[in-house]
């Protein structure tokens, strides 16, 4: 992501300070440009102003999966080559439900994972663009775009950031 304006990077040691900083940041009506944390911190996830539609996608995968499986079962058992199993109806719907539930779950899992992988560009062997070596370990890395109204350096340091640097670019969102 290249844009004019610098990015200020602040490194925190504790979630408590992160929450305090975000509170102060939001009081200025500013958002985080990006954040790297060792575990999901919910104040951070709210302050980056991003959202994901993965759950919605999964819902539609489920609808599609259920319809596709039922259609397949109906086609094979009723249209393609019906077989009389002890006088049961060809369209033995109650039996189909069991298979449909299981296969729908499987389809939702696989397609959601594929979406997660494709949208986030996460795949085996991908080289990570690491902003801070310890962001996956014990440091909270918060990045804010430079703002003419606010002294971000002061805001970071007054809330307990242990290290403040500047960057020209940040890695792309994915």
């Amino acid at each position, binding site marked *: 992501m290249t844009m004019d304006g610098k990015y200020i990077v602040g490194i925190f040691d504790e979630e408590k300070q992160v929450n305090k900083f975000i509170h102060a940041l939001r009081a200025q009506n500013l958002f985080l440009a990006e954040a790297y944390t060792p575990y999901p911190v*919910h104040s951070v996830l709210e302050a980056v102003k991003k959202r994901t539609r993965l759950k919605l996608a999964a819902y539609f995968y489920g609808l599609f999966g259920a319809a596709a499986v039922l259609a397949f079962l109906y086609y094979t058992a009723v249209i393609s080559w019906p077989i009389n*199993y002890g006088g049961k109806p060809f369209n033995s719907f109650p039996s189909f439900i069991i298979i449909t*539930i299981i296969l729908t779950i499987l389809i939702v899992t696989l397609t*959601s994972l594929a979406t997660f992988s494709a949208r*986030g560009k996460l795949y085996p*062997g991908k080289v990570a663009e690491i902003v801070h070596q*310890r962001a*996956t370990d014990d440091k909270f890395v918060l990045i804010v775009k430079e703002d003419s109204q606010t002294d971000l350096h002061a805001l970071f340091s007054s809330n307990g950031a242990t290290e403040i640097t500047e960057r020209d670019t940040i890695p792309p969102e994915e």
Partner: protein
Amino acid sequence: MYNREIRGALVEGNKTLGQISTDILSPMDKRPGIWWFIGMGLATIATFWGLYAMYYTIRFGIGTWGVNNSVGWGWAIINFVWWIGIGHAGTAFSIFLLILRQKWRTSINRAAEAMTVVAVGCAALFPALHMGRIWLAFYIFPYPNTRGPLWVNYNSPLFWDFIAITAYLLISFSFWYLGMLPDFATIRDRATSKVKKAVYGFFAMGWTGSSKQWLRFESLSFVLGGIAAVLVVSVHSIVSTDFAVSVIPGWHTTLFPPYFVVGAIFSGFAMVLTLTIVMRKLFNLQDYITSNHLNAVCKILIFISLIMGTAYATEVFIAWYSANPYEIFTFFHNRITGDYAFQFWAMVICNALIPQLFWFRKVRRNLTFVFIISLFINLGMWYERFNIVVTSLSKDYLPSNWSAYSPSITEIGIYVGTLGMFVAGVLLFFRYIPVIAASEVKSVWKAGEEGEGDKDEQHIR
């Protein structure tokens, strides 16, 4: 919050985030102790015996087993159901406790999920081998073919079972792997050796812990967790229908699905106890898998044990109440008394009575006792499956059909082989994968302490 008073601290000792990574990941940097090599050696020997027994079965056919026309299902299905049951713990731990927002699961779920994947893999071998002609196994896939096309019978629980086990294996593996991404990234970023960095970097899939990744990660965990919860219940219900839809005395009952699901979770949780008690000892993870965690599992086991006892009693009561002579014969003359009385009473004592010792706090806090009781439950659950499979088949409606069953050395070999594979799989897991989900522990590490944690209660982790 409520869990503050009940559970106590989820992580003991005054840790920092960095220390959590070090404590959990450092066993992977060191050469494992001698126990690891001894365990691996024994497991390898068992695995080779098992592989030979499998080869022997495939080469010479099912005739090498002890099964016969009356008892057509022997150790193969007993062990299949037993392993699948054990395999239910991982999902039950991760999913049910995730949905119930039990934060204490974070120390145990990784190990439980690993156990699931390995156990379900072991389980899947049995029906495949029992097919006899394993090279025709692909017939069970509904694929367009030149025999009609002849599709599979969707009314058959055996087909449902095939679908369920395949789906369960794929889904539990996916869920397990997804949870490991952040930890692999931690290893990658902490590694000093180039090889380690490259290998774990490969599997970390470029994870950086950015906000968008965490957002998607949480959504995906939520989706997978939500739908896999259905799977925990449905997979073992389907396994139970393998029995329940057949008109065999002792099998043909509507109690079977809940009875099997609860039994599966029972044996799974018992295996989790067995495994984690060993794991925390070997890796010095006492601060993460605290006696509070094990205490919580024990309490669940009391409850499940009571359900098991109720199920056993219900079965016997309904057999009597139905006044069906075949049901009465099976339960009163072929289980409670008769040739297989030992297996019946072993099941009742191990599953319904011994776990009641967990009512005593002293027993729950004494890990030697807990470990021994967990082994008894594993044994009892095996006897339960033996009891169901063999007693009903050995003496059904027609006395001229009656037959006894005892396993052949080949069947025993296959079972020992899967035990070896399980142990080997678990030992490899201990060696190469962080045994505790470090990133998840970090997120709850202050929960249970005064004034910290639980502020994001509405978010599902």
